[in-house]
């Protein structure tokens, strides 16, 4: 395994006053950089391998898939796995369901969360700190532990097995994240802008919607992307709060598809399905790479 820090090349007792060449720190020899680079590349390849294998499997023929010695490159490319998946009528329907639920929970989460974030960022009020701590606690309560009462509550409200029920349930993780992240965006907008608008005749509310809202747009995009990913990937609540076949989200579809007797051993189709249901998230990650990374690290909530 990789050793702790950089300069292993340097003997312990050597006085380290060696002048650094070409920007390298003292004690970082070129040879060692090569070794560390190699280890890093191997690590990257190992991490990427399951994804490579997933994609590779989708274009392999059945004959390739069942051989004793798996090949690391297909003998010929075939797209039958994709045909199998798209031939399943539930697949596209489940993608549509996921899209509806995701969009609903993102929009609702942003709307509700934005208002609360303005309150927390712009006002000092009694109950502000308890509210913030409550938001943090809510983020950390395991979803599984409230799955049963949520099921009971939604059942009673007639929202069990409805898109709306799941959308409302998803607010449990979108709102806290949106409040927590947007807060820091809004704090960065100078309050003088609000005041200037109010001097010019805007109401307090007008200032929120004409000044704060447009200026926090980048923050809304970042948090929206994150909330999208969370909602798209969610499995536990979708699995417990929806029951009919035609309302399943794509994650639930995948879990059923890959465990039903007909497709349980058809790994080509399973991997094609797995790739298709993750594709929207992968695309978002590629587009918003930097923002998502910093947003996820800051919010530090990925289940």
């Amino acid at each position, binding site marked *: 395994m990789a050793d702790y820090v950089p300069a292993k090349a340097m003997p312990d007792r050597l006085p380290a006053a060696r002048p650094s060449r070409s920007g390298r720190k003292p004690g970082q020899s070129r040879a060692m950089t090569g070794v560390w680079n190699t280890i890093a590349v191997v690590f990257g390849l190992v991490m990427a391998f399951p994804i490579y294998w997933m994609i590779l499997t989708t274009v392999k023929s059945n004959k390739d898939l069942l051989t004793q010695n798996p090949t690391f490159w297909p003998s010929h490319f075939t797209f039958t796995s994709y045909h199998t998946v798209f031939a399943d009528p539930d697949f596209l329907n489940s993608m549509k369901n996921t899209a509806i639920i995701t969009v609903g929970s993102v929009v609702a989460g942003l709307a509700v969360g934005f208002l609360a974030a303005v309150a927390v960022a712009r006002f000092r009020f009694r109950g502000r700190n308890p509210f913030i701590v409550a938001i943090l606690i809510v983020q950390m309560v395991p979803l599984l532990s409230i799955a049963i009462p949520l099921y009971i509550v939604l059942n009673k409200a007639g929202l069990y097995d409805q898109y709306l029920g799941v959308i409302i349930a998803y607010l449990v993780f979108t709102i806290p994240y949106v409040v927590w992240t947007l807060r820091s965006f809004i704090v960065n907008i100078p309050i003088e802008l609000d005041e200037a608008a109010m001097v010019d005749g805007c109401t307090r509310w007008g200032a929120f919607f004409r000044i704060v809202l447009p200026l926090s747009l980048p923050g809304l995009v970042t948090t929206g992307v994150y909330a999208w990913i969370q909602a798209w990937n969610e499995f536990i609540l979708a699995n417990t709060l929806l029951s009919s076949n035609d309302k399943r989200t794509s994650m639930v579809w995948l879990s059923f598809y890959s465990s039903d007797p007909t497709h349980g051993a058809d790994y080509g189709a399973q991997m094609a399905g797995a790739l298709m249901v993750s594709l929207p998230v992968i695309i978002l*990650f590629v587009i918003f790479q930097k923002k998502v990374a910093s947003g996820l690290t800051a919010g530090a909530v990925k289940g």
Partner: protein
Amino acid sequence: MSAIQSDRREESADRLDGPAPAPSAGRRRGLAVQGRYIPYVLILPAVVTLVGVMLYPLIRVILLSFQNVNSYLKLAVPSLDRWIGFDGFSKVLSDAQFWQVVERSFLFTVEVVILSVGLGLLFALLLNRVSPWAKIFVVTCLMFVWAIPALVTGTVFRWLFAGIGGVADYICYLLGGSGMKNHDWFANPTQGLYVVVAASVIWGALPFLVLGLNAAMTQVPKELVEAATVDGANPVQSFRHVVLPIIRPFLLLCTSLSFIWDFQVFTQIWSLRQNSPEPGYWTVGIYLYEEGFTSSHYSNSSVISVAMILLMLAVLVAYIRQVVKIGGQG
């Protein structure tokens, strides 16, 4: 990390010139008096929603754990429900299976937390040392891994470790394990859980840990590390005494987060075992799901939920305190 840092800066700026119109804030007084209700109106929708989807269900779980709602009929006809005090708790807690499940969850969590945070730390350090192109390569790979949903991770790992055609067997065979061909990784739940499930969870957690810890390390001033080296500190010493104290808050944060996530692991096990995990794979999350939704023992399941939250409480409290401290919210 950078966002956390900038947060702290904002908060202190916040305190200095107080953008929030506190009643005593002199010239902003007029606005504050008229608008005192405004923040409450603003947080109202969030509060109402969270009470509805979080607080009420939480209270309901606690109430259910003191009732005997252990069949669908009792759920549908509330007049049949009875309060049974701690009987439900004593029933569940005297079940040997419960303690097996708890023990298994703890062992699994400890294993995964140590391995994922340890590996995360090592590779975060490595990223500091490699050439820029190598770093970009690794970060790109990690971003793709990060994008993979947990359920898909489980599905893919089931295929990687499949008994027939699985590539893990084959790689073990190529590496010299001659008996490894067609090895069934899941036949023995101990192996399945602590090797395959653990591998899938660690794989999914590493991008966050490596990139987060690496971002934390970039906050360490280069001069400090160089000064330590000049003073004769070896790499381990300079890590321990210079880098570690600076990244400590974030390290604690992601250790407790990993604990919280890994203790309630569900999705990966669920899909690795094709929606019906054998009892040998039951961690607390799976156990409470099986009790609640498969067997309709709602009250028993609630007892397990309450127990799970209590078992996680110490770490949860530590985590929230840490976030509050870093966020400077006090």
